[in-house]
């Protein structure tokens, strides 16, 4: 039995009928074609699927699409404005905050949640905010440096 949902993703409104069991991350990737949000562990540990729902970072592999009915969602595709990178995206570029890039969308969305609450976090606060995001390449050092750089840049 399909359920009709309405939601806003990156400023655009969508109305779709979804199976109740469909996970939000697959709704974004397969129904809306927004494949920037990655599926990593699929067990709410790795954070690759992190998005903002009504302004809060959540793991889209552990939410049903039907739960997001009426919500406003931001994914990695929604951060850049008029072709200009978001300060976090630019900082990850400048500071070499990624290698393979698989964890990067989730890292940036988790960091975006932090910076909207605290525009000048300490390094410890950055590390705590990224606790739910795993990177298997960088050792986190450049990721933390990227977030600190974006914060200093006044994102």
């Amino acid at each position, binding site marked *: 039995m399909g359920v009709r949902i309405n939601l806003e993703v990156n400023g655009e409104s969508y109305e779709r009928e979804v199976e109740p069991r*469909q996970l939000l991350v697959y709704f974004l990737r397969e129904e809306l074609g927004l494949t920037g949000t990655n599926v990593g562990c699929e067990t709410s540990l790795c954070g690759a699927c992190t998005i903002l729902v009504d302004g809060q970072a959540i793991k889209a592999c552990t939410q*049903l699409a039907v739960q997001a009915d009426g919500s406003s969602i931001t994914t990695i595709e929604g951060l850049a404005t008029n072709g200009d990178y978001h300060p976090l995206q630019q900082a990850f570029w400048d500071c070499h905050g990624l290698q393979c890039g698989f964890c990067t969308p989730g890292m940036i969305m988790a960091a975006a949640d932090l910076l909207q609450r605290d525009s000048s976090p300490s390094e410890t606060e950055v590390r705590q905010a990224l606790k739910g995001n795993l990177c298997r390449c960088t050792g986190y050092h450049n990721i933390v440096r990227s977030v600190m750089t974006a914060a200093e840049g006044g994102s």
Partner: protein
Amino acid sequence: MYPADFDYVRATSAQEAVDLLAQNADSVLLAGGHSLIPMLKLRLTHPARLIDIGRVDEIRGVCEKDSTLRVGSLTTHNEIASSEIVQSQCRFLAEAAGKIGDPQVRNKGTIGGNIAHADPASDLPAVLVAVGATVHLLGPDGNRSIAAGDFFTGLLTTAKAPGEIITEIEIPACCEEGFGCAYLKVEHPASGYAVCGAAARVKMDGGTCAAASLAFNGVTPVVFNAWSDGSPLAGGPADDAAIDAAIDELAIDEPMGDIHASGEYRVALARAYGKRALKAARDRS
């Protein structure tokens, strides 16, 4: 990874959730989903119907009245950890909520879902038992209340009947003059679950301990209440030697053991962290 198929309905009030539960015995409540959805994905559970209570605002939020905290069951871990009322009136509840999982998990997971799931390695049960919380339920026969110590009955098992919904957790304020509390945790490095979590609460009257309570997560299949019949520390000085002696005498039977930590190791952690938590609670009193 999809869950098996199910029907989905949304409740707009706690009473409507109870009515919907009564309609179909093979229904479960969906709050934040951070215990239920992993179970659904692994197909460890496959209910015919999910009743989404995620927007029932009447059971969400924290308030304080007459030295009692009332925490709605739908309140998220993040809301509890960052609540000034909880931080000032029940500090170790805020500490435990802030140590659950990671920020994304704390944004969705709720206190009601957490205790209904009753994972022995979860963080909230020991705090609720140590503080003497009361769980309020609404069911087909109306409201009832149950002490947290009687609520957790076994591994992933509680005294909540299938047709009931947890509406509120009532918590006596425990940070007034003379009270101290602390929650210390050894967490599994990957999952964040407690290998051992120690929740301690101490009431000092001058140099004498008036009361103390201590409970552990992650050590036994159900939250372990160290002193359900009163603490041996009461009436004494609760100095380091007294705390060490009380914990050394504690019998912790039938601990859980798995590939992450043997039962023997968990008991050793419980003794070390029980002592540290009691001393931290005393020093905060």
